[in-house]
């Protein structure tokens, strides 16, 4: 049996902040008496990730995703629990451990702004003890894959967000890390740049079979990259399983939408007994129906009614995610029912 790349058990992180009443009086009284507020950003978190897995760590803002990433990379120390990354305690920050991991933060640049990316790469080459041949080969390959050969010698602050993100990715992969933590790597990027980054990550994963943990609010990222999802709500794990199972959390029904040339009669026999959502003009309908009925019903509607356009749902994960964020209770109930089984 191989050792898991990541093993977390009963992981907890508590932050302390101090409450201050507004205004000058609030500031003044807080000089003498501070009211601490304790918050468990992560609690009782268990996770095991094996070599070659790409795990999407999802959850609403403030759920604890980034806190987990910080603990996994050794930036912050867990309050409680056991955590091993590649067999090491990350917060001990052993140099050999640090050479085997990488972190990319979409919202925070790790490159030095006042110098060209190539200078940062040269610095990282030394830090990670990458041989000259390997360095050259990696830079050539990655820069051509990402189409940034011409930008390597430009000051980082002059690059666009998308270009900078590509450089950030290059910087983090120079040393062939075995586990990569990607914290919202596509945030703020245009669609083309997002796709470039995703393809690049996929290529790198195919080539190295590394483990990847990725957080993102873009379901396209998750859909394209992850085979497994871990959901975190309010510091606790809400779901851990495959993408397919996740899509079926709310049932295995499919969603199809039709646009019509003119307003339709809602009482039409074809729509009776179906789960439908119409727009106000009655020219567009979303229908949820069992997968086995999808083809037959679609064919009937297209032949009987003046259909202008129709589409099946591209990202069921997005709908499920939205529903769960609005109503996290569903997961608790689901966990309860799984336990009773």
């Amino acid at each position, binding site marked *: 049996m191989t050792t898991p790349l990541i093993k977390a058990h009963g992981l907890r992180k508590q932050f302390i902040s101090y409450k201050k009443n507004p205004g000058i009086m609030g500031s003044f009284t807080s000089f003498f008496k501070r009211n601490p507020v304790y918050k468990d950003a992560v609690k009782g978190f268990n996770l095991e990730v094996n070599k070659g897995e790409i795990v999407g760590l999802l959850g609403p803002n403030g759920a604890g995703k980034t806190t987990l990433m910080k603990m996994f990379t050794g930036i912050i120390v867990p309050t409680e629990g056991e955590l091993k990354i590649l067999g090491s305690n990350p917060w001990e920050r052993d140099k050999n451990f640090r050479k085997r991991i990488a972190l990319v933060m979409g919202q925070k640049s790790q490159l*030095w702004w006042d110098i060209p990316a190539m200078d940062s790469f040269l610095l990282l080459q*030394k830090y990670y003890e990458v041989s000259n041949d390997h360095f050259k080969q990696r830079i050539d390959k990655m820069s051509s894959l990402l189409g940034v050969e011409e930008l390597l010698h430009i000051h980082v602050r002059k690059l666009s967000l998308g270009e900078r993100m590509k450089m950030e990715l290059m910087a983090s992969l120079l040393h062939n890390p075995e586990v990569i933590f990607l914290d919202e790597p596509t945030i703020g990027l245009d669609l083309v740049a997002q796709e470039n980054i995703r393809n690049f990550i996929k290529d790198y994963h195919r080539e190295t079979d590394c483990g990847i943990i990725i957080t993102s609010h873009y379901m396209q990222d998750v859909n394209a990259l992850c085979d497994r999802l871990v959901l975190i709500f309010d510091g606790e794990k809400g779901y851990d399983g495959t993408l397919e199972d996740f899509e079926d959390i709310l049932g295995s029904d499919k969603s199809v939408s039709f646009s019509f040339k003119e307003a339709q009669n809602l009482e039409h026999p074809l729509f009776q007994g179906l789960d439908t959502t119409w727009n106000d003009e009655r020219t567009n309908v979303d229908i949820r129906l069992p997968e086995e009925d999808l083809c037959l019903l679609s064919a009937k509607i297209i032949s009987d009614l003046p259909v202008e356009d129709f589409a099946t749902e591209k990202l069921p994960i997005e709908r499920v995610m939205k529903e769960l964020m609005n109503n996290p209770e569903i997961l608790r109930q689901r966990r309860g029912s799984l336990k009773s089984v």
Partner: protein
Amino acid sequence: MFKDLTLTNIGKWWITIQISWVKHTAYRLNFFLQIIGPALVFFFVKYNLWASIYAGDSEQIIRGFNFEKMINYHIWAFVVALVAQGHGSWNLAEDIRLGRISSYLIYPFNFWEFHTASWLSFQVIQMIIAAFTLGIISYFGLLIFPSFDYFLIGVAYTLFISLFWFTLQYLTGVMAFWLEETWILRVMLNTVAYFLSGAIIPLDLYPKWIVDILNYTPFPYLTYYPIKIFMGELTNLSLGLYIISFWTIVFAIINHLVWKKGIKLYTAAGM
């Protein structure tokens, strides 16, 4: 600490120093002003101030200082400040507070190594600026250059003091793990040191009883002593060396302990 003293690790220090130079020289105008700024400040502030105090009577003697000697005292005070105290570690506390040190915690090169290498690189630039400033001042015929021996000893002693300042500033920086904002602490420290080290006026002008007390503190050894070396007036260096070494070692140990404890409180805010 010393297990890292391998060729590979020295290579990491060297590249950090080089990159730090690249960063310092990234903006041409800024770098140019950094080079010529101190000389301009010297002439506009220090020279004018003392010229008006002596009010044209350059032979007037204030506690053993005529105008020429007083100006030379301030020339060397300026050089000592540039080399020993130039590096304020100003960003360290802010970097901790705003969570900017996270990247350095992930690289396989320790944060203190990165910070110290950047300081070494900064010191080289400060030495160049100090040399340039001295060059301009001596061009105007104001500098009485000491013997070469005294000059070298003075430079070595000043660099040693800069190490002391570095460990002290580093300490005020890493205290941000608890205090979050430490700039006022540093301003107070610098102001007190400025007054008590002889950087504003020579300690010879202070009442004797104050100087006697000060001699038991590190302050006179930070500015007054190195100036006296540069002026070729001091022969006994050992006491200053002992005191400064003692405090440097104490601060280095405290820094190590504070970092070890503080990093556990680090929240990497804003990531």
